[in-house]
């Protein structure tokens, strides 16, 4: 459990009686890694293994393949369709278990899947998507022989051009088991609880409306297992989330959809959302088709109409106004940490210092290439700076102002991999918020249709009951637990190679980074 639970003995003193009375028993979720295969019949694979009619079903291929590509069930004579997604492709040629060469009938053939050109995009390449699926399925980073480039995308800038300068030999003095990946969320030294999460990330705000309740609950359960947080987004607080209250951040945004005193009082962290990286300055946006009866009820809105959160907070036109908001939250929930979520304009560094002055425990900066359930295309590409620049700016400015160690800096907006997380931290963040990666782990193919009609055809970002039923909570939870584990393993590996014992040691270590487009001889 998060360390704030130690303070729970005082809950009776600081929470209103009604909140205590209605508090439900908190559920524990086991942090167990288990296989969670794709919920689709045909997993998209990097290579396609074809079996021709010349096959005599001798079973030689199944005998030698260590990856389980060739399956013949029970007493069947014929083989099933090959499990191509498990095949490592041409990398197998040099091994002794290359089925194509071993086949006495030459009936097998491996070809690259032409759909790899269609799957994904510059930021989320087909390799990244398939690797994330593999991590969500197995709980581990895919082995190098699979041939997935799982560390970077192909956007041509930012994280995709940054690389770590690993020492030739990893440190032998640190054991991977000793490495601490937890981070502190309250650095202000005030009377609020010390909250420590086991991994340097938590889940981003996705409202019920933008995603299904199955998706929300899967996130909440995985975050409970990993002792970190998920966020309700601006769409109200589902009753079914209450067994996970201790791992939930609730969001207060300009529309105040579903925001009530009792929901603010339930949680250890409250997030004030000023802007979202995908659509800075434009407020929230839920198209009418996704405003189903359940969504409308929770948001206390009219069924079927598009819902917009206005912009900006019309009660906030200065840091003093912002402070008034934070004070309001702190008064209502006297155990809560307060997070301020802003986007990344040119003056994000000033916003950061102002937010600290106003009393924030966490500053969450959301970069211009962040995720969304629906946003104008003109906003996604063109407003505010990518997160890679903003992290470094804010970190340095906070340092110069002497408050860096009193504010937790969380970055989001385009964090896709464990390497992105590590790079963010090396640039100066304490941790990150993730969102799209979780959706990909649940089966998202980045078709960009979250906002259309009934919503996500994959049943993730939808409020349509039939579509949402394509996924169940146990499977979703396991996929996310697995992804988190794979990421943590990779993060630990990065720290281990640098000889670090804690992720906190990596913060601000830009000297460990290089940029492929630069001479890399600058003064750090």
């Amino acid at each position, binding site marked *: 459990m998060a360390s704030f639970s130690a303070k729970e003995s005082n809950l009776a003193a600081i929470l209103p009686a009604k909140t205590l009375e209605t508090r439900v028993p908190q559920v524990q979720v086991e942090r167990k890694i288990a296989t969670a295969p794709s919920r*689709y*019949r*045909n997993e*998209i694979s990097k290579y396609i293994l074809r079996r021709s009619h010349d096959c005599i079903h001798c079973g030689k291929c199944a005998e030698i393949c260590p990856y389980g590509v060739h399956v013949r069930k029970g007493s069947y004579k014929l083989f099933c*369709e090959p499990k191509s997604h498990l095949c490592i492709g041409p990398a197998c040629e040099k091994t002794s278990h290359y089925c194509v060469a071993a086949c006495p009938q030459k009936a097998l053939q491996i070809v690259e899947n*032409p*759909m790899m050109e269609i799957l994904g995009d510059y*930021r989320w390449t087909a390799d990244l998507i398939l690797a994330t699926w593999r991590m969500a399925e197995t709980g581990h980073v895919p082995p190098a022989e699979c041939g997935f480039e799982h560390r970077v995308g192909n*956007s041509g800038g930012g994280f995709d051009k940054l690389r770590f300068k690993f020492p030739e030999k990893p440190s032998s003095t640190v054991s991977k088991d000793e490495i601490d990946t937890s981070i502190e969320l309250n650095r202000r030294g005030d009377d609020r609880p010390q909250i420590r999460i086991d991994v340097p990330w938590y889940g981003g705000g996705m409202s019920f409306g933008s995603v299904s309740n199955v998706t929300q609950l899967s996130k909440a359960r995985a975050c409970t297992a990993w002792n970190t947080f998920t966020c309700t987004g601006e769409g109200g607080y589902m009753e079914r989330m209450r067994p996970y209250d201790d791992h939930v951040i609730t969001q207060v945004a300009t529309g105040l959809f579903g925001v009530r005193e009792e929901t603010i009082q339930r949680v250890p962290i409250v997030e004030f959302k*000023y802007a979202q990286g995908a659509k*800075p*300055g*434009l407020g929230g946006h839920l*198209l009418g088709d996704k405003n189903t009866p359940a969504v409308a009820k929770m948001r206390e809105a009219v069924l079927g109409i598009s819902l917009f959160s206005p*912009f*900006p907070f019309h009660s*906030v036109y*200065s*840091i003093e106004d*912002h402070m008034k908001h934070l004070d309001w939250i702190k008064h209502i929930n006297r155990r809560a940490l307060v997070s301020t979520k*802003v*986007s990344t*304009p*040119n*003056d994000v560094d000033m*916003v950061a210092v*102002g937010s600290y002055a106003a009393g924030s425990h966490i500053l969450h900066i959301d970069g*211009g*290439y962040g*995720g969304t359930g629906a*946003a*104008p*295309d*003109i*906003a*996604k590409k*063109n*407003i*505010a700076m990518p997160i890679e*620049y903003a992290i*470094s700016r804010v970190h340095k400015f906070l340092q110069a102002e002497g408050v860096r160690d009193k504010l937790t800096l969380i970055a989001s907006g*385009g964090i896709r991999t464990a390497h992105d997380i590590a790079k963010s931290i090396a640039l100066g963040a304490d941790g990150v918020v993730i969102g799209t990666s979780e959706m990909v782990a649940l089966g998202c193919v*980045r*078709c960009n*249709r*979250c*906002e*259309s*009609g009934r919503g996500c*055809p*994959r049943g993730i*970002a939808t409020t349509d009951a039939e*579509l949402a039923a394509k996924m169940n909570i146990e499977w979703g939870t396991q996929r996310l637990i697995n992804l988190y584990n794979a990421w943590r393993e990779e993060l630990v590996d990065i720290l281990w190679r640098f000889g670090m014992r804690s992720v906190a040691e990596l913060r601000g270590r830009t000297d460990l*980074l290089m940029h492929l487009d*630069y*001479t*890399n*001889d*600058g*003064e750090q």
Partner: protein
Amino acid sequence: MPEKYHIETKAVPPRRPRIGKFGVLDWREDCARCHNCVKKACVWDRYRQEAEYVRTLNAVDTLFFECMGCFSCVQNCTKGLLRLSVNPAWEKLGNSYWKPAIIQTTWAQAETAKIPVSGAGYRGPFTGPGFDSMWTDMSEIVRPTRDGIHGREYISTAVDIGRKPAYLNFQGESFRTDVPCLSIQMPLILNVQSAQHTLPKLGPATRETARRTDLIAMARPSELPFLTEDPQKILPYVAFCLSPEEPVVPPDAMRQTRLVETYDGPDVVSRIQRLKDKYPHIVVSIRVPLDATGIHRAVDLACREEIEVVHVLADANGNQIGVDKPLFLTDMIRKIHTTLIEKGVRDEVTLIAGGGIALAEHMAKAIICGADLVSIDLPLMIGLECHLCDRCEPGRSCPAKLEDVPFDYAAGRMTNLIGAWHDQLIEVMGAMGMREARRLRGDVGRAIFFEDLEEETFGKLFGKRK
């Protein structure tokens, strides 16, 4: 407070089958006939629509390409018979600058007049050349943004065209200026199409679009007389492009227009003077191609007292014309704009920039770089389902059949496109905290430039950019 500017729009469906990005390949010969067909379960019902489409097809000229690319059918088919592929016809749209995605979004905006909205985050490259090397800025808390599009505030996109007096001139009790200046409701004028793209039916529709949107459409004098149009209604929204090859515009028509554009040349000032003597109410713009000398020429002209408006034009892709290492439109605008500031005349002259303006975001970015307004031509054509296939020659078939484009369809689609651009302009202006397009001009503080950001951030960490 003036009446809120609003463009009336109405959906105008395409005349030709849509050309989507994806298509599903179906290897039917191996079908298991499992009666559990995933096609029935398509969330978008595309297979049924495809069947209907094929049934009603008169000629096999294009296939059905409206797949949304979700892979659900591909992944659920019992025998794994389906494959997703990119539509080759989609890939052929446009060219290296006017990319298929630009053509496709322009078609959608011309059809629906809606701002393109999609789910998931940005999918494109981190940065790119030209307009893609800058972001607009916004802020919250310390510099609040505006809630223009869905909120309460009125964001004005109006701009002025003409020379602005450097000081106020009071005569008697009333204030007046000695030079004409006109205001239009968006920082946009509709340029004449190139000779290659000039088609008889486009002119009337473009002028009607200008009337409906309260903008200005440029026209060639040779298009006169306007046979199907009411001159009284349409001429206030027309700006004639005068040139030696064109006939003289009749005085009746000149008297009803508010803006004309003339070509550059050694005698341009005396020509303007003659025009002004005859038609003092008209604002005169000079068309300056942005070739090797274009920037200097634009600055020279803008510094002259007689010049009111300079319309600079890059090539269709926004590049400098006829040079080996061309500058991009944004850089050229910035050079002209900053030089005019240094010379102390920027506020007195209007700068219109054209060439390479392909999306609504380009309009906002060109203005941030220093243009007062922009001119567009190709987006209007594309709005009519043009593929930019470059086959506009007599005897070759036009895939969009632009030669017989219906008037209502064309005016409706162009109006829709401008409506969508207007809404997008308000979106980004709202985010930038701007309430007036006039004040956006040259406000580079509301932009973030890739090169600056790299130098300030990564340059300090990693040395020099290679």
